[in-house]
């Protein structure tokens, strides 16, 4: 069972690969929507990544600004969906 640190590391890895921003530093608390360019397609792809990488179902209503704010919030969400891991 992944703990929240592992989850966050995998999400960070995905975001860096998916939305590379040379020269900028991505941290767990970086605001993905304001400081890291994520567009509508990016949110769709991140959602599908979370579903396939962690085997969870992202409830469609959970695709919102609160959960997508940072890697931290995304990781917490995944852990919650996995059943309290972390």
């Amino acid at each position: 069972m992944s703990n929240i640190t592992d989850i966050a590391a995998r999400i960070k890895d995905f975001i860096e690969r998916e939305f590379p921003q040379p020269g900028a530093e991505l941290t767990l608390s970086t605001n993905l929507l304001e400081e890291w360019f994520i567009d509508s397609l990016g949110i769709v792809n991140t959602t599908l990544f979370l579903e396939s990488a962690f085997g969870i179902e992202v409830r469609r209503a959970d695709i919102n600004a609160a959960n997508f704010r940072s890697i931290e919030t995304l990781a917490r969400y995944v852990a919650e969906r996995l059943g309290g891991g972390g």
Partner: protein
Amino acid sequence: MQRLAIEYLINTRKRFPDKTAIVDGKESITFGELWRRSICLGYWLRTSFNATNMPVVVSMPKSIPAVVAILGIQLSGNIYVPIDVDSPPARKKKMLDKLGPHLVLESSGEGFTCAGSECNMEELAASVDLELAEEVVAAGLEQRINLDPLYIIFTSGTTGTPKGVTITNAGVINYIDWVVETYDVTGEEIIGSQAPFFFDNSVLDIYLMLARGCTLHLLRTDHFLFLPTLAEYIRENMVSFIFFVPSVLVSMTRLDLFSHYDLSCLAKVLFAGEAMPLNTLRYLRKHLPRALLSNLYGPTEITVDCIYWIFGEELEHLENVPLGIPCRNAEIILLDENGDVVTEPDTVAEICVGGIGVSPGYWNDLERTREAFIQRPAQGAYRSIVYKTGDLGYISGKDNLIYMVGRKDHQIKRQGYRIELGEIEAAFNLLEEITQSCAVYDDARKEILLFYTTFNRKPKEDAGRKARDYLPAYMMPRRVIHLERFPLTANGKIDRGALRSYTDSEHS
């Protein structure tokens, strides 16, 4: 007989004064109030600046005041120019320079500002006699004719200077009347508006609302960021009519939102602006079995659209998504490289458009106007102008529909063969699981590269092998690359330039 597009509002506000015209988040406005504000602004512009047929730039975000600006400018006898407020300053400057003498209208607190003067809506409404304002405005409009420009919308030019496409009142009236009839639009329609006002798809949204008294919902940009909120909004507000770019529908499909949300309120789904992938179209058919699904096509230089198709039973057997047949009063001809008309079916040539919807040309740019708007070949008896779209297509011998294969500038030559990158994309789009594909040509290496995305986000290992069923060897891409997402331009289309540099960065 209708002369000016603004007459739609003049008639509708009398029929439905208390009906909601526009909803923007928590704000809304009735037709009566929309009229009152527009006439005040029109009167103020007319009496303050004494200009006619002058471009007035609407530099404001998509909102109710932006619609008031668009209407007020028309009422003042001038031409509105919606521009992207987020456009880089250098690009904005190029557009304003191209306009020559012009005014810029911006929103401010209680009203508008223009050339240093302020128009406070509430003060103006209190101090101006509405009847007098209507008389002054009507007297000004008396002088206008249906061929007067209604709006100018900028489109990118290959040389880097945007071109200001001029569109007439007559073009918009012809288009809107055709849309109303073809799609049976009544006042009951609830329209969800996606397109920004500087993109001409929004002309359909705005003028259907005005012509029929429909309610127009300005969909917020964050709905398009978090698409489930868009689905929820559509369901909650019973939106019945949308005219979206295919990319949005592709993303909604990938999240399977049509299963997660009851979107059966969507009775009419129209799309235009780029190619609609066949798999997305079939998904929509499956999930909205009773909805009208229609593809439309038209560059900015034609009043919104000139070709359309409403999908029926044939959808099941299609191998490619057709553009369809000409809209009313649009003539489509295909011209080959020598400028001769092509009449044989299944022969790829440049799509050229004639008719009342054709723009009179690029504002302040006769040279580029002459290049793109030409005298119809083999027609010497009278002046008849067609616009060369730069898009390549053919008329299928099988179903007599017009199909597009790509841009003229996406045409390449390889081993002596002429190749349309669009044709390669069409072949990959036929494969199961593939949501979208894009072929680019690496000129330096003389290689075709094909990028694609899939429904399940995983690479489709046999994509290249399967595509051989549809493509001759010389058209096969050298590399087939799976992407999780396509880079997009500001207009939401695939950024081909970025794809080309993607390969550069990989090689270096």
